[in-house]
């Protein structure tokens, strides 16, 4: 009988501790509550039985409301792609997917190595590069600083649709532009109904730690519910700054914030697809910066994944993530442990590829390296098949003591299915290495990026749709100016 190895899970919390944290969050929601800076949101929550102080905008949420909301939050959904082959079904215990880190508007120039602002022309290239990398399953925005400020998010989506057929993860600068982007996605999907059935875009919004929900996040939670767009409820207290110094305390806080998000979403739109985006950070106590590669982030995020599994919701964690300013050893080592911890924690999505320097910078060669780091992580959690044929007792017997397996039929048969193959990591002789120009990982990553940029042609939008989108965008930009 064929069976798969166990899914390897990294865990820190015991079942009792998970219950403790859950109970702690219920109590915090009941007693301390959260601040909701949204008139309608306050009324809505009050109507549902929350205790609301309209003056301080404080909402105290009784535990029944939390249970009610948790009962409807889905345990699986698909980040659909314009090309269905690139869909990312997020299912309990399923394989992880990944995306790049979003929001950068600086780059390290691939050719000159210069640190410089990103431009609209770069943005197209970045989407095209990420479209070609299998270790980047869907795509978050990068912005050009020469793009007009008003509607920059909308222009970003236009560029993304033209250069990739993967799911596009949005970032909205205003509630108005968010709505316009959803309408744009509906246009590409065919209709609002088709978009709901196959959401080809997804979104991230974050409450302000500690415990504060601005109007934009309430709008986003509701609009996503209305359109059926999957939303990352991104909880990111900075330990020692906007969250407690202790890891347990930070987990306690972000779990509470996540549950408040679930309540606001699910009471209005039962069944709306949400991800538990557990993205705790840590304040560097020498500079105050919020760290990306501190190992405790991985530990806290793992606890977050356990809470997500407890609530039966998909979970998204920081994956390849680093504080390094450049493509050096620190960058690779931080990314590798962060990503492996996240994958082993059972994350459905690994976030961060390509991102550097406090999430301000994206880099081509880093994307290529992170593509590899992601695919290795996918391989790690995939495990292997165990059955009689693969256990190979018969083959071991046949080859016997002192023999070898190289020319055996068994080797021939499994040759291509058992191994992760790489075109980036060097595995040849010194002679070949020297003859090949004695390249480093970084050299090869740059070359691969250059080749992709030269050769890769993304799957274009149908021409009429492309024109329709352009029309939509220019109208949208005008409407924003008013």
């Amino acid at each position, binding site marked *: 009988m064929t069976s798969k190895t166990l899914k390897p899970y990294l865990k820190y919390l015991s079942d009792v501790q998970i219950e403790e944290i859950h109970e702690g969050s219920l109590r915090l929601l009941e007693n301390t509550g959260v601040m909701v800076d949204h008139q309608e949101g306050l009324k809505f929550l009050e109507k549902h039985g929350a205790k609301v102080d309209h003056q301080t905008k404080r909402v105290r949420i009784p535990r029944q409301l939390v249970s009610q909301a948790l009962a409807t939050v889905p345990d699986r959904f698909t980040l659909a792609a314009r090309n269905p082959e690139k869909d990312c079904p997020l299912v309990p215990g399923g394989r992880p997917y990944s995306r790049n880190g979003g929001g950068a508007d600086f780059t390290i120039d691939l050719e000159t190595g210069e640190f410089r602002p990103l431009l609209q022309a770069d943005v197209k290239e970045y989407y095209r590069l990420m479209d070609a990398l299998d270790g980047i399953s869907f795509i978050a925005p990068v912005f050009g600083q020469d793009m007009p400020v008003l509607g920059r998010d909308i222009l970003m989506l236009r560029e993304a649709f033209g250069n990739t057929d993967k799911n596009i993860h949005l970032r909205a*600068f205003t509630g108005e532009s968010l709505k316009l982007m959803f309408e744009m996605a509906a246009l590409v999907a065919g209709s609002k109904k088709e978009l709901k059935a196959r959401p080809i875009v997804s979104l991230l919004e974050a409450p302000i730690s500690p415990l504060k929900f*601005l109007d934009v996040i309430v709008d986003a939670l509701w609009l996503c519910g209305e359109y059926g767009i999957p939303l990352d409820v991104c909880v990111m207290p900075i330990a*020692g700054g*906007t969250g407690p110094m202790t890891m347990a305390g930070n987990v306690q806080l972000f779990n509470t914030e996540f549950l408040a998000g679930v309540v606001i979403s699910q009471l209005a739109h039962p069944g709306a697809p949400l991800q538990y985006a557990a993205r705790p950070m840590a304040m560097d106590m*020498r*500079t*105050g910066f919020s760290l990306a590669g501190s190992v405790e982030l991985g530990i806290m995020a793992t606890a977050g994944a356990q809470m997500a599994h407890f609530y039966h919701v998909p979970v998204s964690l920081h994956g390849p993530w680093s504080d390094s300013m450049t493509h050096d050893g620190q960058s690779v080592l931080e990314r590798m442990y962060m990503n492996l911890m996240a994958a082993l924690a059972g994350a459905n999505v690994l976030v961060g590829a390509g991102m550097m320097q406090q999430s*301000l910078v994206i880099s081509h060669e880093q994307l290529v390296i992170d593509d590899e780091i992601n695919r290795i992580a996918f391989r790690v959690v995939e495990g292997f098949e165990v059955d009689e044929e693969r256990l190979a007792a018969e083959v071991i017997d046949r080859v016997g003591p002192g023999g070898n397996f190289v020319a055996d039929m068994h080797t021939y048969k499994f040759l291509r299915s058992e191994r992760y193959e790489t075109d980036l990591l060097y595995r040849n002789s010194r002679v070949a290495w020297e003859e090949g120009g004695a390249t480093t990982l970084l050299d090869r990553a740059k070359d691969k990026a250059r080749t992709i940029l030269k050769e890769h042609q993304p799957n274009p939008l149908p021409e009429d749709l492309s024109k329709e989108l352009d029309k939509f965008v220019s109208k949208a930009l005008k409407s924003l100016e008013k």
Partner: protein
Amino acid sequence: MSNILERMQKDLYAGKVAEVEAATRQALDQGLGAQEILNKGLIGGMEVVGRDFKAGDLFIPEVLMCAKAMHSGLEVLRPLLAEAGAASMGKIVIGTVAGDLHDIGKNLVSMMLQGAGFEIIDLGADVKPERFVQAVRDESPDMIGMSAMLTTTMPSMKSTITALKEAGIRDKVKVIIGGAPVTSKFAQDIGADSYAPDAGAAVDTVRTLLA
């Protein structure tokens, strides 16, 4: 240095709030002058703290605790310090610029400057140029500090400087700016007086500018 001032410095370094307050009273009882206690005990103590912070031996929360201890002593001295303002090293109006809600960095810089003895007027986040101008008129600060974390809100720093010029009060204040995407070149380009990359450097830079 007298024993009592030495102990005050040690307690200050250890962040012992009540002890520093008590030592300040005791020093006064022993007949030491308020100005001397301030300079040698409290400010002297904070200088050691600042040095060790820069060396990486002390962490921000420790520095803030030391500052709290320093302030407990300062409150005792304040009524005795001859000229008004002698207890303050300068007044700074600070805020995160219009359209930007990122206030964590700005808050940290405020706390560290306060700890170093500066008086801080915090306008919060999403502060429009007019509000900075109004605050300069109302508070007559020595300096304004602006923070921005978004490249899309950085231009508001320039607008604020322009607004100060138009109001004819640009030369009344120094301007320092900061935030992750901000650079010293940008500071020069928009006519700010200075830039600092982190809270520790901010304290040093402000000290130099207001010296």
